[in-house]
């Protein structure tokens, strides 16, 4: 009874926005989905799922092989989305170093993504460099940006850090938007050339897919290695308990700098790939929502877990595309999803070991 009253309350609240009819439909909708939830919960409670034997090596190999043959089976449209997913995986792996490993809730990572994209765009269009030479300059540049912006942020803790990094992200976006003489403002930069590899232009989607896939493999491999090293352990210790970490002899300030610099490095790579894939960049692609979207990916998969980050990115990029009819409700669901995740599964889909 209390639950029904609560549903009634929710639909009453929605009436100014949805009208009386809309509110009534909402009430019926909530009641129906609650009933369905109860039914499913009861059914699944009775069916005991057998434990699936899970072998990390086999799973990884299977994933790599299927990723290699996928472009032959997919329509171009899906290859396109897979490329985007790959770019997001690289970005999310970078953010994961900062948020997942080191526990610093950074909400301005779109800035480094944007710096990487713009740097590559400007170097290739204005200076006429090729993709690779531009990349060689872009990566140190974004890392440097990560290092420099770390200085003011790292004196703060927890939620203050979150807000200040959000502020930095927005300032960078406003600069991109208003510095017309260099960034061409809201119009963005177009005609960014495709990468050329060994005299071979990577213009076709399939080629680009393999390029991005190669970078995803490198990123996942490197991040995984670092996670299981002295540096990775130091980051985890800072996340777990900063004071205790410092007392164990870890120079927490230095390792936070390292985390942000290294995280920004991957964001820069993702940005550069994004720019050359789209042949176009504009400030709209690097908003606060973009930062939040990436945070969602790593939370969904499980903070700090490399396979989790990959899974989370794939789900969040692919799901909305597969359910295109529900495109409008994508962000609505994302918001509800975040709240539900925090309440029911704060550790993510893949629990950290």
């Amino acid at each position, binding site marked *: 009874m209390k639950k029904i009253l609560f549903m009634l309350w929710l639909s009453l*609240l929605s009436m100014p926005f949805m009208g009386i009819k809309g509110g009534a439909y909402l009430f019926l909708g909530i009641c129906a989905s609650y009933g369905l939830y109860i039914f499913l919960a009861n059914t699944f409670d009775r069916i005991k799922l057998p434990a699936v034997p899970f072998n990390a090596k086999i799973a990884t190999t299977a994933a790599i092989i299927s990723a290699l043959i996928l472009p032959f089976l997919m329509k171009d449209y899906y290859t396109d989305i897979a490329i985007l997913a790959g770019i997001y995986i690289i970005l999310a792996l970078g953010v994961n170093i900062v948020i997942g490993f080191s526990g610093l*809730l950074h909400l301005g990572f779109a800035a480094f993504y944007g710096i990487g994209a713009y740097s590559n765009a400007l170097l290739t269009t204005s200076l006429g460099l090729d993709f690779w030479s531009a990349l060689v300059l872009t990566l140190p540049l974004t890392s440097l940006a990560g290092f420099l912006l770390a200085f003011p942020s790292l004196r703060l803790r*927890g939620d203050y850090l979150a807000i*200040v990094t959000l502020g930095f992200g927005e300032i960078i976006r406003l600069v991109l938007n208003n510095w017309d003489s260099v960034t061409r403002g809201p119009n963005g930069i177009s005609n960014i050339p495709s990468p050329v590899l060994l005299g071979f232009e990577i213009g076709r989607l399939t080629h680009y897919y393999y390029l991005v896939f190669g970078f995803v493999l490198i990123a996942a491999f490197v991040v995984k290695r670092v996670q299981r090293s002295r540096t990775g352990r130091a980051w985890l210790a800072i996340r777990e308990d900063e004071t205790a970490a410092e007392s164990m002899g870890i120079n927490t300030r230095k390792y936070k700098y390292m985390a942000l610099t290294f995280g920004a490095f991957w964001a820069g790579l993702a940005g550069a790939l994004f720019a050359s894939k789209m042949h176009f960049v504009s400030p709209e692609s690097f908003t*606060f929502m973009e930062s939040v979207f990436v945070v969602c990916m790593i939370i969904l998969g499980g903070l700090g877990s490399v396979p989790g980050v990959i899974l989370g990115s794939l789900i969040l990029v692919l799901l909305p595309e597969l359910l295109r009819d529900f495109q409008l409700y994508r*962000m609505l669901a994302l918001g509800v*999803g975040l709240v539900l*995740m925090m309440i029911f599964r704060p550790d993510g889909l893949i629990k950290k070991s």
Partner: protein
Amino acid sequence: MFLQQIINGLTVGGVYALIALGYTLVYGILELINFAHGEIYMIGAYLGIIFIGIFTAVGLTQYSLFLSLFLTFIMSVLVCSAYGFTVEKLAYKPLRNAPRLNPLISAIGVSIFLQNYVMLTQGATDKVFPHVLPVTIIEFYNVTMTTLQLFIIIVSLLLMAGLHLFIMKTKTGKAMRATAQDKVMASLLGINIDRIISVTFVIGSGLAAVAGLMVAMYYGLVNYSIGYIAGIKAFTAAVLGGIGSIPGAMIGGLVLGLIESLGAGYLSSEYKDAYAFIVLIVILLIKPTGLLGKTEGGRS
């Protein structure tokens, strides 16, 4: 010119202060940056437009403008408070003992949800506040000020004074202060913490609703995306004054309004939105406890 900017700054600053109070009240009690508070303000603005629309449709506005506006205020505040109350119960209460970043992420989720909920139900285009208000311009010493601006400044100041009295004099206000000081102690003294938290959200949301409604009247139109930037600015105002401090939020709001208005007038209006962020970052780096905040000892 200068005086003109001051008046514009005070108008916007009063609005910031009202929203900032919501941040500060919640932070004082839960130590949570209620990221969705900007969205509550946006909902308040929409509710204002929706209710004045209803009252106009039934002919009340034509009969008595004053009554219609009065009821619009009341209804917007009530419904908006109900939204704040519900958000707390659904998205924050289950996370009260979770690690500190979890409620913040949940709040970001609520913010995304509310923004898109309003966009889907009310459309992505600007909503216009009906032209029912008479505009009278007051002029003195080359400075112009509309009656609406005067109204906004006065209402903001009255509400702040009212809140101050409520917090200092009433029993609930005292219980709120006790809870902010020490939750465990407060509950041992028989204070119902859940109720106090709900009251805090209701008051904060009510103030945000008034702010939203006044902004809708002032600019004449609203959009589903106004909550985010206003929320950040109001949060800056709260931090500027010292988060958790009620007079701090009031002063912070007014100061931020002035900085923005003078900055846009004398420096560059393109970066108008960036001033808030720059102020926020500078304050957090130099004096994280804000203008009126207490200083803490020890090393971080």
